[in-house]
C-alpha cells in the first residue's frame, strides 16, 4: 500500500498546523535567495539543524533528503568550481542542500492525511465554480488506483517474462495502457450507478 514519508513524533514541529509549516518554508527559501550572503546561509543551516533536533530526527534522515539529488548536486558543484571558485561552489551547493533539507523537514513531520484534510477543508470554503466534489473524488481515486495498477503491472511483467521480452519497455507499457483504458469505462459506470448526481 502507499506509505508517505512521515516520521512519527510528538514534537512542536509535528503538532504545528501544516499551513504554518508551509508558510515558514516559503519564508525560509525566499530569505536564503534574497539575502545571498554566506552569513545568512550559515544562519539558515543552523536553523535547519535545530529544526531536525527539535523534531527528534537523525542525521540519516537529513541525508535521505539530499541523496536523490546527489548526482545533480555533484555536477553543480563541479560546474561552479570550474566557472568560479571553491567558495562559490560550496555556497551554491550548500544553499541547495539547505532548501532540500528544509522542505523534507516539513514532509517528515506532516502526515499525508493531514495535508489531504487541509486541502479538503480549503476546498469546502472554495468558491462555487470549483468542482470540489470532483477534486476530492479524483484524489481518493488515485490512492485506490496506484496499488491496482501496480498489481496489473506485475501481471503484465510476468506474462512478458514468460515470453522472454521483459526488458522491452514497449512490451510492458502497451498492454498496461490498454488495460487501464478498458477499466476506465466500467469504473466510471460503477461510480455513476452508485451515486445520484
Amino acid at each position: 500500500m502507499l506509505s508517505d514519508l512521515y516520521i512519527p513524533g510528538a514534537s512542536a514541529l509535528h503538532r504545528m498546523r501544516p499551513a504554518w509549516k508551509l508558510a515558514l518554508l516559503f519564508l525560509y527559501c525566499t530569505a536564503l535567495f534574497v539575502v545571498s550572503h554566506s552569513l545568512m546561509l550559515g544562519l539558515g543551516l543552523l536553523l535547519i539543524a535545530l529544526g531536525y533536533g527539535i523534531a527528534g530526527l537523525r542525521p540519516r534522515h537529513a541525508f535521505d533528503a539530499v541523496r536523490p539529488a546527489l548526482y545533480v548536486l555533484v555536477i553543480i558543484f563541479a560546474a561552479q568550481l570550474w566557472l568560479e571558485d571553491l567558495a562559490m561552489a560550496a555556497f551554491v551547493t550548500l544553499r541547495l542542500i539547505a532548501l532540500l533539507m528544509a522542505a523534507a523537514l516539513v514532509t517528515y513531520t506532516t502526515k499525508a492525511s493531514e495535508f489531504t484534510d487541509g486541502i479538503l477543508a480549503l476546498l469546502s470554503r472554495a468558491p462555487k465554480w470549483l468542482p470540489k466534489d470532483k477534486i476530492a473524488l479524483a484524489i481518493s481515486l488515485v490512492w485506490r488506483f496506484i496499488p491496482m495498477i501496480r498489481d496489473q503491472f506485475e501481471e503484465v511483467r510476468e506474462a512478458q517474462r514468460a515470453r522472454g521480452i521483459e526488458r522491452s519497455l514497449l512490451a510492458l507499457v502497451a498492454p498496461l495502457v490498454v488495460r487501464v483504458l478498458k477499466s476506465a469505462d466500467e469504473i466510471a459506470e460503477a461510480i455513476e450507478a452508485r451515486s445520484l448526481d
Partner: protein
Amino acid sequence: MIFDRVCVTKGSRRILSEISLSLTEKRIGVIGENGSGKSTFLRLFNGLQKPTSGTIRAEGWGDDLRRHVGFVFQNPDNQIVYPMVEEDLAFGLKSRKLSKAEIQTRIDEVLETLSIAHLRARLTHQLSGGEKQMVALAGVLVTRPDLIVFDEPTTLLDLPNKLRFMDMLAALPQPAVMVSHDLELLMGFDRILHIEGGTVFADGTPSEVIPAYRDRCLARAKG
C-alpha cells in the same frame, strides 16, 4: 417493472429493438451470446443506458430509476472506489445526503448481514477476489435498493466463493435481475430471458429456455 417498446441505437447501429416486457418475478436471469445486447439491456434498468425510444416504468418509482436500482458489476476491482472498505461503503450514501449517524448505522447493518464485519477497516486492494465481490455488493446494499441487477457476478469467483455468493443471493429479500453464463446457477431462477440479436428471443421458465439455448449454442458451435 414494465418495458414498453424500448429501442436503443448507437450511431446507425441498432442494439436493442422493440423490447416490451412486464417483469414481476423475484429472480430473473438473462442469457445470450457475447454481443447479443444483454449488457445494454441490463444497463437500461438503472438508467446507465437511456432508451432511444420507448419507456421503462415501475410502479411508484417515478422517473429516477437509479435511486431504486442497485448495480453489481462483473469485476469488483472496477467498482470499488475508495482505498478503505468503510470509506467505500459510505460513498454511495454521501450523495444521498444522509446524516453521519445514519450512514454509520447502515454500514454496520450491511456488514452484519453479509458477515463481513471483520473487513471494515481493511484496505480494499488487499482483499481476496471473493471478499472484494462481497464488498462491492455491500456498497450496493447500503443504498437499500428495491431491485438489484447483476452483470455476471460469479465469472471471476472460484467455486467456494461462488457457492457462498449463491447462498447470499438466495437470502436477499430484494428482487434481482442477473446476466450470467452460469446456466447451472440460473436453473434455480423464476424466469429466464434469452436475448439474441437485440430482441428477446425466448422467455419462460428455466426448464423451457435453458435447454433450448444450450442446444442452439451446441448446434452453432458445430457449424
